[in-house]
């Protein structure tokens, strides 16, 4: 029954439909704003339910892309609109469709101007994100991947804070620089292989020196998105200026595109180069973990602190991915999903108090726990999840990454694990300064408690983080076979390299 319906395209383009309805029918006044909110919420909810169909009908034992749709697009050069999901992309599709309704619900009160435009931009953002993760054609991927920039740029630029223009441009400049190189690389790949199908390209083995160059070109794009140290400085600024829901999507999904890119393109397509660059990536990631954790420690701006902590957590993702071990790769995907939920929720927490007090300065708070007890519970839970307490999803991801990297480079694991200590320091300190103490300041005492809508936002995320924390098998099972594919490739090339090294030694 389902095989006849182009379900992935439905998921991808249903939000576009919603966005068009909003843009065509809702005027920019109070009533229009209200209508647009509900249209957006319902569209995104239906999309989410549709995506659950994919989740439940996804076959974990099938070692390939599923729900494949294919239509010729540019016949002359064999480019086709080709969609499908495998174990690596499915979690991200679900993550995207899950976070969008949450974000829309979260911006019901906080967005005051041009509501219909905002809502439709969010729906368009969903189209592009889901498209990115479903694309099986590298050119289609590229278009979605880059187009994501536009709505995000607008969301920061129009609804952002005081320095929004600077941040938006910084964001654009960084990400564009990387993508130009990637585009050139894609053209080169097409000219060599004559195809843009991801599956086909992965079968092609490029010469070693070409792999190095292509890897670097893709690396330029993905490392900025992730972001890795030292190209991370756009992230704190973008987060600080973005509206709450923008931050949630940025941290929750957009950063993951970088990690997804590594897993989908860099490692399977350029395995020799990946093996060659792995130590370099470990160094950058370890620096990211320690350096940004220390920087996060001294921030006075809550959002900036969480943004820096994201960079540190993403360090785990790259380390896991380039450990080329089963545990490491699984941990890498797990960490991305879990970080998507946790950091998203943390930004929501900041949004909750920001909506009330209109400042992100940590020192302006203190004693909030007394006034907003429910909020204190949610924030505490998110903080602990971010710290990686067992029983939350954060723990599983970090643990698996550490296990994976210990197998290959124990010393990297030791440096990496310092992140667990540093993470605890800045998060606990943040919580303490914001929530604990006596509520003396007048504006704190008069804070409103969590509304029903806000509780509804938090409950599903909290449950997911908890369930993923105590029962990790379902998600791990989904990713297992796709990860095995990657490992097969890298193991083959690692063995090949050692064989050739032995051969040269014999000569």
């Amino acid at each position: 029954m389902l095989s006849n319906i182009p379900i992935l395209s439905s998921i991808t383009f249903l939000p576009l439909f919603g966005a068009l309805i909003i843009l065509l029918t809702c005027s920019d006044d109070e009533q229009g704003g209200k209508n647009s909110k509900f249209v957006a919420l319902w569209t995104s909810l239906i999309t989410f339910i549709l995506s659950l169909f994919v989740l439940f009908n996804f076959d974990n034992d099938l070692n390939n892309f599923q729900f494949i749709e294919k239509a010729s697009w540019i016949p002359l050069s064999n480019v086709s609109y080709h969609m499908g999901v495998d174990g690596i992309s499915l979690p991200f599709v679900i993550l995207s469709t899950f976070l969008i309704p949450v974000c829309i619900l979260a911006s019901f009160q906080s967005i005051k101007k041009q509501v219909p435009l905002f809502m439709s931009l969010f729906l368009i953002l969903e189209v592009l994100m889901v498209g990115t993760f479903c694309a099986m054609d590298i050119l289609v991927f590229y278009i979605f991947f880059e187009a994501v920039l536009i709505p995000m740029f607008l969301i920061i630029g129009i609804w952002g804070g005081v320095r929004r223009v600077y941040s938006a441009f910084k964001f654009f400049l960084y990400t564009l620089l990387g993508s130009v190189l990637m585009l050139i690389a894609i053209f080169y790949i097409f000219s060599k292989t004559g195809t843009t199908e991801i599956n086909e390209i992965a079968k092609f083995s490029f010469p070693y020196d070409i792999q190095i160059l292509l890897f670097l070109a893709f690396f330029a794009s993905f490392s900025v998105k992730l972001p890795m140290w030292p190209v991370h400085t756009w992230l704190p600024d973008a987060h600080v200026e973005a509206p709450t829901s923008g931050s949630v999507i940025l941290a929750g999904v957009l950063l993951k595109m970088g990690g997804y890119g590594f897993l989908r393109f860099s490692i399977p397509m350029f395995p020799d180069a990946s093996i060659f660059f792995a130590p370099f990536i470990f160094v950058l990631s370890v620096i990211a973990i320690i350096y940004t954790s220390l920087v996060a420690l001294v921030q006075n701006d809550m959002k900036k602190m969480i943004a820096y902590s994201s960079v540190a957590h993403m360090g785990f993702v790259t380390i896991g991915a380039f450990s080329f071990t089963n545990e490491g790769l699984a941990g890498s995907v797990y960490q991305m999903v879990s970080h998507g939920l946790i950091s998203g929720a943390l930004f929501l927490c900041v949004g909750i108090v920001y909506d009330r007090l209109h400042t992100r300065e940590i020192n302006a708070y203190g004693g909030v726990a007394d006034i907003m007890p429910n909020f204190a519970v949610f924030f505490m839970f998110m903080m602990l999840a971010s710290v990686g307490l067992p029983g939350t999803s954060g723990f599983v991801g970090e643990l698996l990454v550490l296990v994976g990297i210990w197998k290959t480079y124990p010393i990297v694991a030791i440096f990496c694990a310092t992140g667990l200590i540093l993470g605890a320091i800045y998060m606990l300190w943040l919580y303490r300064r914001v929530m604990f103490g006596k509520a003396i300041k007048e504006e704190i005492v008069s804070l409103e408690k969590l509304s029903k809508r806000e509780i509804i936002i938090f409950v599903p995320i909290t449950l997911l983080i908890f369930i993923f924390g105590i029962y990790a098998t379902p998600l791990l099972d989904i990713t297992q076979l796709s990860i095995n594919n990657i490992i097969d490739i890298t193991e083959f090339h690692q063995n090949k390299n050692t064989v050739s090294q032995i051969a040269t030694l014999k000569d």
Partner: protein
Amino acid sequence: MVYFIVFLPLLGSIIAGFWGRRLGDKLSLYLTSTLLLISMTLSWITFWQLSSNHVDKVYPLMEWMNVGDFNVVWSLRYDMLSAVMMIVITTVSAMVHIYSIGYMSHDNSKPRFMSYLSLFTFAMLMLVTSDNLIQLFFGWEGVGLASYLLIGFWYHKPSAHTAAMKAFIVNRVGDFGFILGIIAIYSVFGSLYFDEIFSDVEGLHKLSIVMLGFKINVIELIAILLFIGAMGKSAQIGLHTWLPDAMEGPTPVSALIHAATMVTAGVFLVCRMSPLLEFAPFALNVITIVGAMTAIFAATIGLTQFDIKRVIAYSTCSQLGYMFFAAGVSAYPASMFHLTTHAFFKALLFLGAGSVIHAMSDEQDMRKMGGIWKKIPITYALMWVGSLALAGIPFFAGYYSKDLILEAAWAASSNSGYFAFWLGCLAAFLTAFYSWRVLLLTFHGNFNSSKEVLDHVHESPFVMLIPLFVLALGAIFSGWYFYNDFVGYNWKEFWGNSIFISEKHKAFKLAHYVPLWVKYLPIFLAILGILCAYLFYVLNPNLPKILSKKFYPIYNLFFNKWYFDELYDYLFVKSFIKFGNYFWKKGDEGTIDRFGPNGISKLVKIISSKSIIIQSGYIYHYAFAMLIGLVVLITWLLLDYGI
């Protein structure tokens, strides 16, 4: 039944936590306490069953994670080691729950408090019943979380939430070692389950890896890493700084978490891993030495403190040191024995101190107490019992366990064993001294505070005294009751497979055959300590002042806790903030942004402002440019084609 023992406290915690406000204070108090009492009864019943039939069991719950070989299943392991821990945990916890009904009667968030207490109990039970290392780590972090929440329970007080944060972070330093140890175990054994690990140890104990150019024996490395974790949780020297500060929490918390149960998790871990540690002689030596140093170091600080709870906290720290050096000389049963007896008498002392503090209108400074024994005679008597047990006076619980530990240390006849023995003896003297210092300063002499406080001094209600009685029974009889099973000749049968001692390590076996003077020296020193305290604080009250002046540097060192806090503050806190600021201002903003995005946009501006000059709009400018272009083109063509 094991399911019920573990999950009833969780049930209580959830109900009191989520619906406590709706249920009302009374109902949540009674509900959580009742559930704990049931759990306690069940764990005693199962304990007796197990000690008669000796059948170890694993009760599976559900799968947790599964990636390749890395698979973890939630399950409850019930063997003698977990059974002993369970009776200790549930008994002390049930008593603390009941005690809290009285102690927290003036507090206005009782359900939250009870919920945390029950949550702690659940996490601790998960820790001890774990069948694999990851679940153990779950419990390990869970108790850490509960401890964090309970230390910071009065979150209005800055000192309380600072202490809570400190406890969590210092523990994290230990966890850093622990988690790496777990991962190392997995990489060597390919499994996380105790049975599978232990059955492979013998074959793998000579394996080594190269790290940073050094060749390291893997089992030793694992043992040291795990011990770092144990040091954090059990407040051993170096990672002990959080424990005294943790006294900011309500007193029942100190009794349950920071005396009887959580802090002994490290000792439990070491005993649980005994089959592995037996193949790591170097690590065992380290454990012995660290334990012995902690025992003496904490005792010296305990001598000089004036906060009644802090003295007892340092005494806990010191007693944990004993347990560790017992484990270090491979006398794990002795270590577990002391853990059990200590849980009873230390919880008694803490709750007794709580009763004093309650009577003194929340005063904790012993200098402001004195002479109140007539007003609170029951508490006073019970404090005596606790102190006698702590000092190791014959036939009280501590006498059996502490003496055995010292004898085992002597019988190890190794350098580290003798080291531990002598430091342990000295610490025994100091223990007796500071215990009686507490008793004499608190209950005897003149009252040193305002009259209102004195008028208010009252004996605690029954709901607080009953738990004290129960614990006092433990403090008196637990040593005598458990002696034969725990450390008698049949210890192997009793502990079953849960504790393993290699044939090479004879300390525990020989502990029963030491020279007489070794047996009697600790008792003699303890009595001497009591007499000294009497001399110092009753016969000649000026003596402490004279001595502290005369040995000012040493006294100051002890009084300021060997300056550990100051050192760490300087080494870590300040330097982290300095580095953080440096990276942020000089790294991110000063370098990356300056030469990255800002630099590029500046460059673009400069170039475009320069290129504006060329586009002047005058035709002769353009004509000139064209002319130059033409000249360049022709020159290039000429050169290229060699015309």
